[in-house]
């Protein structure tokens, strides 16, 4: 199976919940009336596109109808495709691997898959021959360090670990020193899951961030917020508050294969201006892949 088909397969649920619903709607409707538009709005909301973004899209649809760009229900699908495409932007924005080391900080609420994401990121970069190091700065959750250690062995990465319960900023500091002295290409720092509403934990995150940028001035080169694709509108709150604490530069959307609601990708990009950089569409290590908006839209709207 080629990459595109794999992506399509991973997005199958979203296609079913979104694209096929639109197709059904189109095939059952003869003209575009208020009822049709309401149903369309429902499909968007149902796909977790979010109220605000749905409103935005629906306004454009209504305008399109007025401007005679949309004349029959059949015109809706291509119209939406171009709408979503323009909301997402076209191109993949890669993490630039430059300077020794390139530091990637990984943050998010509990249970979104941060540690697993780091393992898979390690796997991805290892294939290009980079020297990789993990920092186990999740010193809170039981056995988080062990989990990362197992991944480190799998992908042949160095790992810096402290005792459970020790200061995560100190782990980050040690990892930065070690990465510098060992000529590591990529240092990926794991952090404990924290709810964005817990101010003390967010302060802790700020401290980790401060330490990193104090030791290497451009670092972290990337702060990835890991979001669970099954999360609803709370994803917006998460993105906002984590951005305030750690200057989030990209989103990793995990567990996308399990949800029919890939719509949250659109909401994140259009409401928060944070690009989705990676998507997880399966359990295998290479099921975490760079997010290419154009490819995503094609796979989502592909007929065959």
């Amino acid at each position, binding site marked *: 199976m080629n990459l595109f088909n794999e992506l399509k397969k991973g997005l199958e*649920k979203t296609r079913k919940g979104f694209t096929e619903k639109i197709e059904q709607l189109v095939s059952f409707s003869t003209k575009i009336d208020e009822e049709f538009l309401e149903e369309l709005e*429902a499909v968007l*909301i*149902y*796909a*977790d596109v979010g*109220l605000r973004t749905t409103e935005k899209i629906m306004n454009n649809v209504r305008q399109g109808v007025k401007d005679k760009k949309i004349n029959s229900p059949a015109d809706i699908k291509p119209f939406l495709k171009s709408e979503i495409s323009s909301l997402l932007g076209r191109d993949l924005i890669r993490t630039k691997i430059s300077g020794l080391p390139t530091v990637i900080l990984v943050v998010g*609420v*509990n*249970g*979104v*898959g941060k540690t*697993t994401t780091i*393992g898979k990121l390690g796997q991805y970069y290892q294939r290009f021959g980079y020297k990789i190091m993990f920092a186990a700065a999740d010193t*809170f*959750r*039981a*056995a*988080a360090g*062990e*989990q990362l*250690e*197992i*991944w480190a062995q799998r992908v042949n990465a160095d790992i810096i670990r402290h005792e*459970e319960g020790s200061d995560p900023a100190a782990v980050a500091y040690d990892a930065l020193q070690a990465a510098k002295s060992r000529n590591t290409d990529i240092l990926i720092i794991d952090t404990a899951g924290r*709810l*964005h*509403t*817990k*101010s*003390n934990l967010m302060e802790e995150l700020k401290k980790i961030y401060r330490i990193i940028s104090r030791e290497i001035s451009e670092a972290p080169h990337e702060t990835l917020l890991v979001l*669970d694709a*099954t*999360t*609803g*509108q*709370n*994803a*917006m*709150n998460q993105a*906002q508050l984590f951005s305030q604490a750690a200057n989030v530069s990209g989103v990793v959307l995990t*567990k996308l*294969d*399990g*949800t*029919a*609601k890939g719509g*949250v990708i659109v909401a994140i990009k259009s409401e928060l201006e944070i690009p989705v950089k990676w998507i997880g569409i399966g359990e295998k290590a290479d099921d975490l892949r760079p997010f290419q908006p154009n490819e995503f839209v094609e796979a989502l709207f592909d007929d065959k």
Partner: protein
Amino acid sequence: MIFEGLADKLQQTFKKLRGRGKLTESDVNDAMREVRMALLEADVNFKVVKDFINRVKERAVGQEVLDSLTPGQHVIKIVNDELTALMGGTQSRIMISSKPPTVVMLVGLQGAGKTTTAGKLAGLLLKQNKRPLLVAADVYRPAAIKQLQVVGEKVGVPVFTIPGSQDPVLIAKQATDQALAMARDVVIIDTAGRLHINDELMDELVAIKIQAKPHEILLVVDAMTGQDAVTVAESFNTKLGLDGVILTKLDGDARGGAALSIKAVTGCPIKFAGMGEKFDALEPFHPDRMASRILGMGDMLSLIEKAQATIDFEKAKELEQKLRKDEFTLDQFLEQLQQVKKLGPLEDILGMIPGMGNLKKLQDAKIDEKEFKKVEAIIQSMTKKERRNPNLINGSRRKRIAVGSGTRVQDVNRLLKQFYEAKKMMKRLNEMQKSGKKSNFKLPFMR
């Protein structure tokens, strides 16, 4: 919170509507549009919302508006009643089998919080004088078993697993015998997280069910789950037959519409709510509070309960009297802070108050423990007169107070600003109390 409360929205909708009388269909339709938005924003499933709105409409049209309520409040009352009814009663316990061991099986998606919940549940049962045994049957995620072992150690409950085994069915099967041998009376099986669409892994759960014969199968669900919550719950329910749900991460700011969707679709009671990172943070689920929370009206009841447990009633009464007379002074402010400090982190508390969910506005009113000492020092450096009448405090007085308390003038300024904010807030609460006499929203220091 991005979305302001439904209450505010409805007030706006009904602004033009004066006087009393019956609720007309168009009044109700206007209101329902807002309710629908609020529910969708809270991630309540689309279809569930549709049914719900229709039901409320039917009930609301033509009703007399109660004397004490504005039409907006009246609609909220109906909505709230219906929501609470839909959520069902409380059933926050594990049915203990007459023939031990009682077997409880936890299932759910990855990252929902099964392992942590298993630990919390064990802790809770321990407190009820049960002797739980934790069973580590997550053989897939790296270090998952180790995680449960650490958790077990922390709560003081033994953990059973078969070292090196890749067979969760076998582990679950042997767990019951093991429990009998160790004289443990409740078995809690922690299964691996899995997607509801993964047939192979779902079948594995069925196999575990057949072998372990659980008395209760509980679905662990993240409160932040979006529209998909329904599909997830439905799949697990059809495949396994669920007995209940545990909602996790409710200590965040998710409105938790998933709870409603799951209840509506599966009919399963929500038994417990995970409210924090500590192992005692598993609480009984309160349907009525959840209803208010989903509607964005804050969790007043939890706040009140918390407040009642910690606030000194005599002092509160006194404070309330003074508030009535608009005599809120810096002395009271300090006293109040001291009481609030006992309640725990202030932002948690404020988040529970309707209309106070907007954290941005609260940045100025936020108090952390270190700040608190500073505040105390500043207020104690003021003269009695200044404390009673803060308007007196001019530039030179501010300088003196700053020097006296070892702080900076900015700190004094900030404190005064906080004080005025608090005063405004107290007033608002006070007015709320006056306008909605029939409501349950009462703070102990407001009675």
